[in-house]
């Protein structure tokens, strides 16, 4: 099935009922209120709320959804339409679920002893979205919650059903290959022999990197290759978390290295946790092998070590 086909199938569920004639497992009760209050760190249910009645406690409004949760024993009163929607997403690989939004309106307080009933509608199903967790679809439902038949609250809930982003060890052999051409071939020949070569203009003496056919200073096409010492400092850097790139295991650091010779180059920063990298940190050249390709990288050294 194409992405568009799936999206069209999913959209057809908008407006359909998700739960019809749902019933809370138990009436609102003081024990559940107490569990909730203890977990959240708020005072427990007060059975002496004026006007509520003897021995009756009011539930915190934010517990609204708790009374309609299915629990371990399975969903309460879900329609075939909702089950089909979930099955369709499961088959598309969207087997994981995470809640993202919750909007609630509290119309009448819930009190111990209240019998809870509810109905829910599938309000919307989003097109395919890619998130940090994985790619999937957002489903929004709107639930009307009643206490002893009286509308007590409106609960709009959005979940992301997604295919988990694969977590696996990156293989360095998968790293992208450099584009080697007539202008930079000498640089990559140097790397193959574990030498970091930069260019020096033989007309004006200016050193340059990356490799170019002419001098940016004086325009001369004459140059010679000189070997850099491999010493430098972190001039700037970024830490990559997302998106995933083949051959790299996030988080990883990409540095703009200022070489002792004064030119700058972009390369991997290794040897220090990305969060501990600092501008000005000293670095030294190393070579790593990625499949059949040698690559220059820089090992960072924390101050005082």
């Amino acid at each position: 099935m194409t992405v568009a086909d799936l999206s069209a199938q999913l959209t057809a569920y908008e407006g359909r009922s998700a739960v019809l004639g749902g019933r809370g497992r138990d009436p609102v009760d003081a024990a559940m209120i107490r569990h909730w209050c203890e977990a959240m760190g708020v005072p427990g249910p007060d059975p002496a709320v004026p006007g509520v009645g003897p021995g009756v406690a009011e539930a915190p409004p934010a517990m609204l959804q708790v009374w309609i949760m299915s629990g371990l024993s399975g969903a309460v009163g879900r329609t075939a339409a909702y089950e089909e929607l979930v099955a369709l997403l499961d088959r598309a690989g969207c087997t994981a679920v995470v809640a993202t939004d919750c909007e609630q309106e509290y119309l009448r307080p819930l009190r111990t002893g209240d019998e809870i009933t509810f109905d829910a509608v599938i309000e919307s199903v989003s097109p395919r979205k890619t998130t940090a967790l994985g790619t999937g679809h957002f489903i929004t439902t709107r639930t009307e919650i009643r206490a002893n038949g009286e509308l007590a609250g409106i609960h709009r809930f959005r979940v992301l059903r997604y295919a988990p982003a694969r977590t696996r060890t990156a293989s360095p052999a998968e790293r992208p290959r450099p584009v080697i051409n007539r202008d930079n071939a000498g640089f990559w020949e140097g790397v193959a022999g574990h030498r970091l070569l930069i260019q020096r203009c033989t007309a004006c003496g200016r050193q340059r990197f990356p490799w170019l056919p002419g001098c940016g200073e004086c325009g001369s096409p004459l140059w010679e290759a000189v070997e850099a010492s491999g010493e430098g400092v972190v001039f700037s850097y970024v830490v990559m978390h997302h998106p995933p790139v083949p051959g790299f295991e996030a988080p990883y650091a990409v540095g703009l290295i200022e070489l002792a010779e004064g030119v700058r180059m972009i390369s991997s920063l290794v040897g220090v946790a990305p969060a501990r990298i600092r501008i000005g940190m000293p670095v030294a050249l190393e070579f790593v092998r990625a499949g059949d390709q040698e690559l220059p990288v820089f090992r960072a050294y924390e101050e005082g070590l």
Partner: protein
Amino acid sequence: MKPGDELPVLSVPVTRTLIVAGALATRDFTDVHHDPEAARAKGAPDVFMNILTTQGLVSRFLTERLGPGARLRKLSIRLGTPNYPGDTLHVTGTITSVSDDERAVEIALMGINSLGRHVTGTASMTLSPQEAGS
């Protein structure tokens, strides 16, 4: 109380106990909220807080800051970065509007952890007469 007033921050240590107790107290048995291996299999590094606990902590912040007589009328939240064990959630709120009789207030909410914005949202509350005067 007037628009622009900031409510004092509520800082909550995000412990495993809070994550698991919160999930169970809200009848949420989804495995990612209590089983670290299941959480890892689904792309998260550890168990993380469920939305109903975040909602509970935000409602605690509101009732602690606006007084026991204040009633929550509406609460809308959106989750961002996850709350993993060992982090701290800092909940902040700003009054965005106050009715003429000072009984109804609207609040913009945010909860920050070390990864960024865990939760953003808005709330509407009504205050008891004595709290409205303060």
